[in-house]
């Protein structure tokens, strides 16, 4: 089963004709994702990678019953593309574009407020249901179907952690990259709720970093419910200098605090087991599962 995506996902790709759009659509199709359409204003009526291309998301949905979108559009136009997908009532929009202006996300957040669409990203690696469906940029070589749910702020660390799980024969139900930006759609709390409801997921791993409020909110949520599944977290940037932007926009905390150690403390008090570094994640997960079963 997993969360957010699966065999019923019918994907359209906004920005399909670009270099990155072509690359990731091709990869998704090879992985078995049901891709049904591409959108590229001005190129409607053509085909690309064997898929029909439409001028607008609405046209693509009307013709192909697409229910999800992958947005691979240059940052200055990404927000408009996301809003177009929200207005077309898609269930899911995944945006992998990097460096989307934050004030553009003001408009996106306003559009999301009264819609049923779930936005993942921007600056997300996407979502992977191993063996079933891939929407995003992640490598799939090391992925294996199974029962670990992963929600992450970092693409590179997700790949790293996933490879280690698979090597230890611990497969994954779904991996979700919530994105490295300050303003983004789906967060850790929503991922936890969905993983909590998913019968296939037996344990959840959160991969966080300094900056932002995701880890603190996850800790608040977990303290307020009887979650019932083990949760493990890796929070990186424990030794990062304060006040500098470390790659992700979200790591820069303009309003002080939000250090990795604060987050680790908050998660620990909420009953989350902390992995000290990437080498420690599998061991900590096995320990958490033992605790849950004892």
């Amino acid at each position, binding site marked *: 089963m997993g969360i957010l995506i699966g065999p019923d996902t019918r994907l359209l790709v906004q920005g399909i004709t670009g270099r990155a759009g072509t690359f990731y659509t091709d990869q998704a199709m090879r992985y078995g994702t049901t891709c049904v359409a591409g959108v590229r204003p001005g190129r409607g009526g053509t085909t690309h990678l064997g898929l029909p291309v439409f001028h607008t998301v609405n046209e693509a949905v009307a013709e192909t019953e697409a229910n999800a979108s992958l947005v691979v559009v240059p940052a200055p136009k990404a927000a408009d593309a996301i809003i177009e997908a929200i207005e077309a009532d898609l269930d899911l929009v995944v945006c992998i574009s990097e460096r989307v202006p934050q004030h553009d996300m003001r408009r996106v957040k306003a559009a999301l407020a009264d819609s049923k669409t779930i936005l993942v990203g921007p600056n997300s690696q996407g979502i992977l249901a191993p063996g079933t469906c891939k929407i995003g940029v992640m490598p799939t070589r090391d992925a294996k179907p199974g029962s670990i749910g992963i929600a992450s702020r970092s693409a590179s660390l997700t*790949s790293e952690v996933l490879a280690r799980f698979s090597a230890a024969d611990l497969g994954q139900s779904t991996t979700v990259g919530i994105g490295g930006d300050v303003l983004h759609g789906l967060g850790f709390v929503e991922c936890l709720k969905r993983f909590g409801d998913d019968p296939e997921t037996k344990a959840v791993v959160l991969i966080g970093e300094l900056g932002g409020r995701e880890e603190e909110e996850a800790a608040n949520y977990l303290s307020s419910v009887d979650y019932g599944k083990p949760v493990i977290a890796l929070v*990186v940037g424990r030794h*990062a200098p304060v006040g500098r932007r*470390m790659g992700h926009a979200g790591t820069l905390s303009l309003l002080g605090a939000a250090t990795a150690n604060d987050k680790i403390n908050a998660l620990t008090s909420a009953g989350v087991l902390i992995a000290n570094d990437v080498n420690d994640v599998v061991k900590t997960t096995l320990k958490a599962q033992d605790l849950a079963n004892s």
Partner: protein
Amino acid sequence: MLLAEYSSKELLTQYGVKVPPGKVARTAKEAEDRCAEIDTRKYVVKAQIAAGGRGRAGGVKFAATPSSVRNEAEKMLAAQLTTDQTGDQPQTVTAVYVEAFVDHTAQYYIAIVLSPDTGQPTLLASPNGGIDFENLAKTNEGTVTTHQLSGDANSDKAPLIEFLASIGIEEPNAADQILSASDAFIANDMILLEINPFARKPDGHWVALDAKIAIDPSALFRHPELEAIATAQNLPQEESDAQKSNINLVKMTGNLGVVTNGAGLGLATNDMIIDEGGRPANFMDIRTTATSMDIARGVELLLNQPAVKAILLNIHGGGMTMCDTVAEGINFAYSRNERNLPIVARLAGQNAEWGRRILVERKVPVEIFDDLSAAVKRAVSVVSGGAS
């Protein structure tokens, strides 16, 4: 991207925010001469750096006469200023701002940010403004109250006046100025607008005594005029060079150069190095758009730093950055640089085997490990003079 105080004030003035009369100067003599243009009985001399925490670090001085303005400017200019917010990178003071001293009866902290939850502009306010605000806010969570704005001055005005009254700001001119600031915040893609202190003069008029603005670097493409200000004063040279090569680089003070792809993996690698007792010379995040030539330029920036004694390469290939692309980049950099620094490498993920082969066959001085912990241990031991 932070604007210096004088640039921030210049920008805010255009929208109707009141600031004390002041002039920027780049030499001590110029600072003295500028005093004639400022009508006041007492001056404030302020070091212009793109970071806060200046007042506590000696970057703000009062002066009664133009000649003492000159003395203070002399001491500040060309000095390095390290504040609570400059991190590892002391900033050289290349300009001072000479301003009229303004007598005031109250000082507030005022800031506008985009709320991470709603995405809409949010006003933060505290009656405890001034140079100790940051420390106070750290230790005392109730210091700051927040008020949601919409960005539309007409609908924001009445609720804002009510909010300000609840925290002790009664004068309507304060609300007008905050609405002007909100307009400036939106029109210029700001991600932080901080006025600290926002002060009440004895006559009931409010004035921004200091201002700090951060512009969203991702939105600079629509503000060429601000980009010019940014490049003139902001990032260390290596960091802006790296940006041009699709690499996020942050200089640190250690001796172990670090080459990694992905921000998270970069942070994780530096955590492990420091846990192991080592000192990273940098944080690096090779973005997925980087080519092998970009990566070569990033690696050269490390090779050119005399402090760097060895390089730890930690790559998890995937997406569009494959291990062989990075290995080619390392090879390019080494083939055209005289410093043949030892590399400790750990390559995993897409095309890892191919990447390892490139490094070995091109005779890059590399030691390869499969295990990340072992690689980190070895790299730390190499820079501390450990035998191989």
